């Protein structure tokens, strides 16, 4: 373990986040929110001071020698430290008074979950609203870079499947590859940010809301600037723009990268994408069928838009964004159950979305299908394949391990919530929603994903759940790997 290198990188992360506080600082100054402005200044000093002294350890050679395992551990720790520091502005500005509240909001932001404990969002200072959205956006970059540049080389949770996707970033050592792939992958991320901002702005949002909501959607986060999430934007244009971009953020960024280079074929050949698209389509149609008869009250108070409302909700939950245009807890039970399933599945690997990931679900389904084929044709020879490439049994095994850990994580989280006397629906759906980084749930938090009434301890438990779900339990798994300690 190269401690100096790890500290150095975390220090760099803190410097970046510290620098980013300039944006909400600027907003606060512009809006004459002096206390908020001071709080960001103070946060910046803490982050830059801490980050600067940590990166004092920065040793080029040691970073170059960093292995992927250490890299993931660094990311895990880094994420934790950033989440903790991200809570500072909420506390300094007095916007949130209790520590669990501030932590929950910060964890929810940087993990791009989008669950909130603020009951009256519209009353918040604008600087704070900007900080929430910005934390999503920063977290979004982090996850793409981590998933596509480091995890494939570790072989945990089946992520090695994506090694095939990125032949050009092959390598054993982290740093040069990370910086290269980060640059490439962020191209798409920045492009989405710019395009989406203009579309939202042209669609009639004011500039401030357009920026915040762009950050939240591009990172598949879920923080909205309004108490009723997106329900106040009834314009079909705005809603379709959001649906499309939420869908895009649920896709693998490696695919986006190839698309940007004009490789349309790779998209159609990508089985994970086809699976993702198919689920969105089928689930949307089913939900539409169920809510269309009672269209008025169920689909945001208007008639004639049940398809759009269904699409919005299905895409929003599946990409684990968690924005809402209607209160789906009033829907018939089947659509609600489907949304719960989507919370588990999540988007594609290598995206900003959370959840178990389409790729893993698809591979496990293929395993089941192969078993059925073997029953019919006992002498069949089957090889598991993904987008026409063979998948080894190791991958399937690691996906199965990941499934167990994922479910166990959600279960433990839910049981802890139940121990605090929350009802079963609330406990289980909140646990799943947070581990999958969705935001809204069923029961107490409801469609707005408002966790204000949860006990303080529950907020801490859910915060940790979000973090573990976000980094896909990797940091924990890495620590459990015997080889990690041997070397």
């Amino acid at each position, binding site marked *: 373990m190269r401690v100096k290198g790890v500290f150095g990188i975390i220090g760099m992360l803190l410097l970046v986040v510290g620098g980013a506080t300039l944006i909400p600082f600027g907003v606060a100054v512009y809006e004459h929110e002096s206390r908020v402005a001071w709080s960001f200044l103070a946060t910046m000093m803490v982050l830059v001071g801490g980050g600067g002294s940590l990166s004092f350890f920065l040793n080029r050679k040691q970073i170059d020698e960093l292995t992927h395992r250490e890299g993931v551990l660094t990311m895990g720790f880094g994420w934790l430290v950033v989440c903790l520091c991200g809570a500072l502005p909420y506390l300094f500005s007095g916007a949130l008074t209790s520590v669990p509240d501030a932590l929950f909001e910060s964890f929810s932001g940087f993990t791009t979950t989008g669950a909130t404990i603020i009951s009256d969002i519209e009353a918040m200072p604008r600087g704070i609203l900007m900080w929430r959205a910005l934390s999503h956006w920063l977290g979004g970059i982090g996850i793409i870079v981590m998933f596509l540049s480091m995890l494939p080389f570790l072989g945990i949770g089946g992520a090695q499947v994506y090694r095939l996707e990125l032949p050009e970033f092959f390598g054993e050592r982290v740093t040069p590859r990370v910086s290269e792939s980060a640059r490439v992958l962020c191209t798409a991320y920045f492009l989405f940010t710019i395009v989406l901002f203009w579309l939202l702005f042209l669609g009639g949002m004011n500039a401030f809301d357009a920026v915040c909501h762009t950050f939240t959607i591009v990172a598949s986060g879920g923080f909205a600037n309004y108490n009723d999430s997106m329900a106040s934007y009834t314009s079909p244009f705005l809603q379709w723009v959001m649906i499309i971009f939420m869908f895009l953020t649920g896709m693998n960024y490696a695919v986006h990268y190839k698309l940007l280079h004009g490789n349309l074929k790779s998209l159609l050949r990508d089985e994970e994408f086809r699976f993702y698209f198919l689920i969105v389509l089928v689930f949307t149609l089913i939900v539409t069928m169920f809510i269309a008869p009672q269209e008025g009250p169920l689909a945001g108070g208007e008639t004639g838009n049940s398809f759009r409302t269904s699409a919005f909700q299905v895409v929003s939950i599946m990409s684990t964004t968690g924005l809402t245009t209607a209160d789906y807890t009033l829907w018939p039970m089947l659509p609600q159950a489907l949304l719960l399933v989507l919370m588990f599945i999540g988007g594609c690997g290598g995206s900003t979305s959370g959840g178990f990931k389409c790729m893993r679900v698809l591979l496990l389904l293929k395993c089941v299908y192969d078993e059925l*084929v073997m029953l019919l*044709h*006992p*002498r*069949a*020879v*089957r*090889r598991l*394949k993904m987008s026409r490439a063979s998948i080894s049994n190791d991958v399937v095994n690691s996906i199965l391990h990941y499934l167990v850990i994922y479910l166990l994580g959600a279960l433990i989280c839910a049981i802890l919530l139940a121990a605090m006397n929350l009802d079963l629906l609330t406990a289980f759906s909140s646990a799943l929603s947070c581990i999958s980084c969705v935001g809204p749930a069923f029961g107490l938090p409801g469609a707005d994903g408002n966790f204000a009434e949860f006990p303080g301890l529950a907020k801490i438990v859910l915060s940790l759940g979000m973090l573990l779900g976000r980094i896909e339990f990797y940091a924990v798994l890495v620590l459990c790997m015997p080889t990690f300690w041997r070397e």
Partner: protein
Amino acid sequence: MKFFFRRKQTARLKAVIIGAGEVGVQVADHLASEDKDVVLIDTNAAALREAAESMDIKTVHGQGDSPVTLKESGVERADLVLAVTDSDATNIIACLFANKLWPEAVTLARIRNEDYTRGQEDLINGVLGINTLVNPEREVVKVIERMLSLPGILEYNEFADGLVKMVSLQVDCGPMVDLQLFDFSKVVPEDIIVAAIERGDKLIVPSGQDRILAGDIVHFMTLPGNMRVLRRASHYYDQEPARSVFIVGGGNTGFLLARYLEDLGYSVKLAEVDEERSLFLAEKLHDTLVLRGDGTDRFFLKEENIGEMDAIVALTGYDEENVLIGLLAKSMGVGHAIVRVNKREYHPLVETIGLRFYVNPRTAAVNSIMRFIRRGQVMASVTLGDDEGHVIEIIAQSGSRLVDTPLFELGLPKGSLVLAIVRNGKAIIPTGQDVILAGDRVIMLANHRVMAKVETFFTPLHTDLSDGE
């Protein structure tokens, strides 16, 4: 004068053939019978002796890829070097040395491994500079697919980019039996003609007096769109194209066939005995159901419901096993059985026991090699019967004897026939009054004995003067 030029033209093309396997011997036989100078190289002395006894060729005993052997064979004055051993590497190396020793020679390598075919560009162009590659397995795969999609059809070939088709059918019953060819147009439209009739091991290039007898294999020349008419006239109309295919034997051909068929949307099962090979197949094939099992195992075939499948294709390495698999599957109710039989001696037997469809990779290889040899003037070449006849497609050149004379005045040798003329993208089935113009594509049939004579008809006379010795 004409007589004099003709002699010049046929003189002494020199070919070095490496590999006295079936393909090599077959090609040597063809070339020798057309009065070409042939040198055959192989490591197997017995095979060479056998070849030398039946043909007028020279043989050299030795490694085909060794420059010493190549020099000994006189490669330094050869026009053609054909490397057709079973080993891809030997073929490639032999071509490389031949290129080095005598850059004038045109080289051809027989390639079976798919990986080499993928790298075709590198082999043909650049430093390697091999002139052409033939992949007989590929040809076989296409032939089998045609048999599956057009049941009842024994052979199917296209000429002039599909404007003219040649279809071979066995005529057992129906209006065509005992029909004198004068009356042929009363039964079928005018744009179908009989190109050749195969009776027993004889190939008849027909005239108007000839009759079709029951059991004959008839090669029809037709314009597109007559396939249904032909199949109805021969009473094959009730057979549907195959959609589900069971392939036995996952060798090179089996693998290529499965991949070709699955891409075309067939439902394919592929049985392979070897465990490692079956894993390889399962990895490379995507929609094919790969099975590990022995095709001669009755229970295995039953388990996989062979009776419900449209066709079985037996492609194991053993002719005997293939025939048995075909018979077994037939007895269990499969629609068609296509079996691979390499040994020529077995062909009549296979027909007798009712397995009508057999594929012979050797013929496919010979076809593609002969096509290559005649390149320049000949666009396509297909052998008929037991290599008795060739159908060739040529471009009529101005100055050759073929052009500007009505067909009946041409004086083409007996045993040859002009089957179709394609002019400006339109195909015509000619009568004696028709005239071939320069630039036309002409599809001709010739018995192999008169092939050399026929070649003189489509060679421009003036080039002979400049090339003359």
